């Protein structure tokens, strides 16, 4: 917000008009706390306090969490000008709930390793510079760049920031905007688009009576986990639906399943065909919705063939089919472990076939509403962007690249040689809050303000029914006056390039105010521009007009490869995603390092999960270090043993093993993404991150595994007691 004429006092006066949220009033018998840090804050008498600022009283303001791409609405608790705690915005898609990432995002805001001023590469290393100098360097390096020789490489972006970014790219004559997310649902979206004509339809967990999920960790990391958790409760109460999870390594969703089934990585499509086979033969489900070719193919996949390829027993196939048939309507999902393979698209297509066969399309998979503000919609990330971008920079396509919200130097596999290729780009600008691996490779670093220090709008990538813009507002003064929001930086660049229509805005705040004032009268619901602005900021959400969409059903060809054994590298590497670290962005937060992994309960380090049988074969016990070697390199980490892993699998979570990224992340654990073999999904071009084969050997070293202590068994005591669903339905059923 630098360079504008609105100071904090005015801003807060304005905010006071809104009086956002539930002000919790504490008692006058509480000790009055006046924060005054020597030399840091001005002494301002409280004789005439701001309307909202009553010492000792917390006030809540609405904003938007940006810790993962889901875009949950939050209420931030402010006391004496500081943000203290975040809660979910009850009006938003996530309701009053927030996940651990959202709770910990306040640590991102106050992180001791934040970049507090611009930096430029001088004599080989990054040195602090002033904004004047930073803009001067930008002017020299960027202004003269030819059309099409610049690109943006970002994480998920949406709202008015995305709109400004588009405008800037247009002005530069470059359409090159790579949107990359290491954790994504791109293959599933491609299949949805092909079959249903809707890349992100509404998954109605609440309407389903049974869910068969092939690796879609909707309670942990899939698309919008807090929202799905809320829907999951509706699914689990009353008549209580049945959840079956098929995957190579137990995810959080898998840990909540009624039936968890271990499948060899990449064979999920075969399991889907096997289930279809049972449905058609045993249950005589009407196959009219499928083509002759599809039915013929399904007929080939009898139990013995499916078991041979996938390792899933015939009895499990029958149980799955029974659950789906007996608990209608059902919903079949495909997620990360099914999608991210060389045959990922085919897996997702076979899984979608089950939805068609069971008649779920239109019942539990509904058309999404299309939001009227097309230019504000979320640009969803994928991993193909990484591969395409690597090719482009290798070919010397760009003179200038801007990075924001993505850390490809850390998340890219070694075989891409990303860091070396990046060196071929003459000038790299990183807009970042932290000195992560990618930011440290940049020539110019522009310090971003935190999501809780800036203005902005966000459109959640998954909000199929009630389209809305989620507002971001500064919840407190910026920790450093030298940081700027993405919106402000983009606006400055647009003005610098003399793009028509932006000269009148002093800052991004005034741009946003004007943009909202210019929204259609139907959106403003009869309010004046100022009233609408206050209401939007107060509520944290703007409902956007949307029109109902429709779904078609056009199933593509279904084919599945046979299973290929690899004697040199007999095991499958599963680079699993957990909610603590996500794609590695949370590794610099101490709370999420200390919070144990949801399933293994390991903290502050990496680990490798194997099945007891596999451990016996390898001759390892918990805590032993093993060497996990692919054709691209090796990592060493400690073993954790449990029965939630396929016997042919070794699972190492992603997110740790940073070489940089601050005191909490640097040098902790290993990064399995580095040893991925080169493989892509043939149809979608996405990175096949689950297709790597490895050889695992004992190193001989051993140490205690950093796991939440105590017994993993209840030794017969009633700590967690379990009842049968039939009992639950009888006593508490609808």
């Amino acid at each position, binding site marked *: 917000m630098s360079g504008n004429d609105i100071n904090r006092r005015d801003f807060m006066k304005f905010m006071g008009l809104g009086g956002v949220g539930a002000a919790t009033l*504490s*008692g*006058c*018998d509480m000790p009055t706390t006046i*924060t005054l840090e020597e030399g840091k804050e001005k002494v301002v008498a409280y004789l005439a306090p701001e309307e909202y600022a009553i010492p000792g009283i917390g006030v809540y303001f609405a904003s938007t969490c940006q810790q993962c791409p889901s875009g949950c609405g939050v209420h931030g608790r402010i006391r004496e000008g*500081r*943000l203290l*705690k*975040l809660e979910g915005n009850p009006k938003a898609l996530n309701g009053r*709930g927030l*996940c*651990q990432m959202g*709770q*910990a995002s*306040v*640590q991102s805001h*106050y992180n*001791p390793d934040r970049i507090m001023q611009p930096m430029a590469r001088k004599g080989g290393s990054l040195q602090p510079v002033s904004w004047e100098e930073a803009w001067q360097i930008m002017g020299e390096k960027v202004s003269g760049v030819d059309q099409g020789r610049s690109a943006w490489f970002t994480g998920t972006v949406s709202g008015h920031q995305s709109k400004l970014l588009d405008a800037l790219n247009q002005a530069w004559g470059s359409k090159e905007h790579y949107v990359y997310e290491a954790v994504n649902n791109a293959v599933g979206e491609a299949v949805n688009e092909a079959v249903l004509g809707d890349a992100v339809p509404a998954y109605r967990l609440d309407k389903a009576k049974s869910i068969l999920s092939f690796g879609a960790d909707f*309670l942990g990391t899939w698309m919008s*986990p807090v929202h799905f958790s809320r829907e999951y*409760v509706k699914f*689990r*109460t009353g008549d*209580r639906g*049945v959840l079956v*999870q098929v995957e190579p390594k*137990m995810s*959080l*969703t*898998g840990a*909540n*399943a*009624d*039936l*968890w089934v*271990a499948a060899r990585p990449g064979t999920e499509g075969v399991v889907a065909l096997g289930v279809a086979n049972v449905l058609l033969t045993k249950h005589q489900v009407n196959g009219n919705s499928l083509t002759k070719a599809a039915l013929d193919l399904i007929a080939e996949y009898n139990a013995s063939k499916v078991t041979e390829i996938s390792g899933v027993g015939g009895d499990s196939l029958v149980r799955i089919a029974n659950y789906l048939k007996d608990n209608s309507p059902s919903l079949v999902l495909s997620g990360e472990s099914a999608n991210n393979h060389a045959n990922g698209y085919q897996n997702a297509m076979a899984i979608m076939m089950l939805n068609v066969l069971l008649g779920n399309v239109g019942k539990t998979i509904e058309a999404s509403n299309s939001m009227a503000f097309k230019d504000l919609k979320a640009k969803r990330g994928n991993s193909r962007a990484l591969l395409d971008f690597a090719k482009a920079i290798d070919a010397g396509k760009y003179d200038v690249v801007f990075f924001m919200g993505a850390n490809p130097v850390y998340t890219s596999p070694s075989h891409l040689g990303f860091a070396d290729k990046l060196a071929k780009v003459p000038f790299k600008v990183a807009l970042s809050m932290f000195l992560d691996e990618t930011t440290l490779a940049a020539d110019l670093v522009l310090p971003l303000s935190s999501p809780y220090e800036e203005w902005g709008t966000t459109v959640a990538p998954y909000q199929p029914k009630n389209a809305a813009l989620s507002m971001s507002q500064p919840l407190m003064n910026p920790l450093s006056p030298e940081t700027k929001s993405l919106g402000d930086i983009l606006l400055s660049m647009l003005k610098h390039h003399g793009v028509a229509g932006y000269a009148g805005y002093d800052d991004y705040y005034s741009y946003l105010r004007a943009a909202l004032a210019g929204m259609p009268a139907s959106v403003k619901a009869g309010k004046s521009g100022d009233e609408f602005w206050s209401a939007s900021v107060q509520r944290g959400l703007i409902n956007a007009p949307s029109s109902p969409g429709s779904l078609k059903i056009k199933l593509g060809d279904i084919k599945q490869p046979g299973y290929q054994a690899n004697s040199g590298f007999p095991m499958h590497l599963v680079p699993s995603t957990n909610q603590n670290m996500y794609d590695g962005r949370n590794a610099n937060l101490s*709370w*999420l*390092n*200390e*919070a*144990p992994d*949801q399933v293994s*309960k390991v*903290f*502050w*380090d990496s680990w490798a999960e194997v099945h007891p*049988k596999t451990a016996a074969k390898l001759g390892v016990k918990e805590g032993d270090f093993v060497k996990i070697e692919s054709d691209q390199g090796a990592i060493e980490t400690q073993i954790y043993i*449990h*029965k939630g892993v396929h016997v042919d699998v070794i699972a190492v979570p992603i997110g740790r093993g940073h070489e940089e990224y601050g005191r909490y992340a640097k040098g902790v654990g290993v990064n399995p993404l580095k040893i991925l073999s080169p493989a892509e999904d043939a149809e979608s071009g996405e990175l096949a991150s689950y297709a790597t084969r490895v050889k695992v050997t004992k190193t001989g070293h051993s140490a205690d595994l*950093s796991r939440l*202590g105590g017994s*993993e*068994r209840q030794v*017969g005591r009633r*700590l*967690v*007691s*379990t*009842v049968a669903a039939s009992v639950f339905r009888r006593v508490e059923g609808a």
Partner: protein
Amino acid sequence: MSLKNILENWSDYRRTAEDGGHHDYEHMWAMAIDLNKCTGCNACSVACYAENNLPTVGKKRMMKGQGMHWLRVERYWDEPDMGGDEKEYQERGGSFLPMMCQQCNAAPCEPVCPVAATYHTPDGLNAQVYNRCIGSRYCSNNCPYRLRYFNFYSYYEESWPEPLNMQLNPDLSVRDKGVMEKCTFCVQRIRVGKDAARREGREVHDGDVITACAQTCPTEAIVFGDMMDKSSKVSKIWAAHEVELGKHEQHKSDPDLRGYRVLEGLNTDPCVTYLERVREA
């Protein structure tokens, strides 16, 4: 609450389950946690770190069991003697159990404190007075749930490097070396709710106070409230599942009602009722 008062009126503050002493309490704060809804996502635990100024202690100290997680989510694997099986794979997933101080009415930690630093409030809370605590750790030794956490070091020295310290909640203290601490049912939030009600000249309504863990829970598995208010959500859940305070064994009209208290047979009379996890087979 002076020490003199406590010593003189010892029997008022030291209740046994048989007294049913809670009946004349002003409030009786309690929880109900539905394990059919709980997914084990851990949001409650991190929310507790944010609300209650819990320090992070690092890998080494965590491994020594010195983590300060007032609320931890335990995970157990199924086993045959708990209705599971010995199949090749973990077919029924995991069993998650969010564990925070159970605020026992007959708390084993209370009578062993040599300085009455832990005692029962007329709100039914098992309170810990940091200023009075001398760090004997007898209470922790006596807690059957292992839910008391001791400050072996001055964790604040390393846990909140600037500007992380700005996030600290001024509504409660940062504890120093030598002091025992544990879940308080977010007593600072209870205070705010009670004060607001008093100022408005009314009773505390159900929903006025919500703990940090319950508020953030994505599935609303944790319900918090006042057992003295018979219309509160938490009272209704306890009543529906026929779990009663002041008992070490529940006699239910239907044995299939899901409510139970962890290690109830120890006669601790905990204020947290869990509703059983549900599995298809």
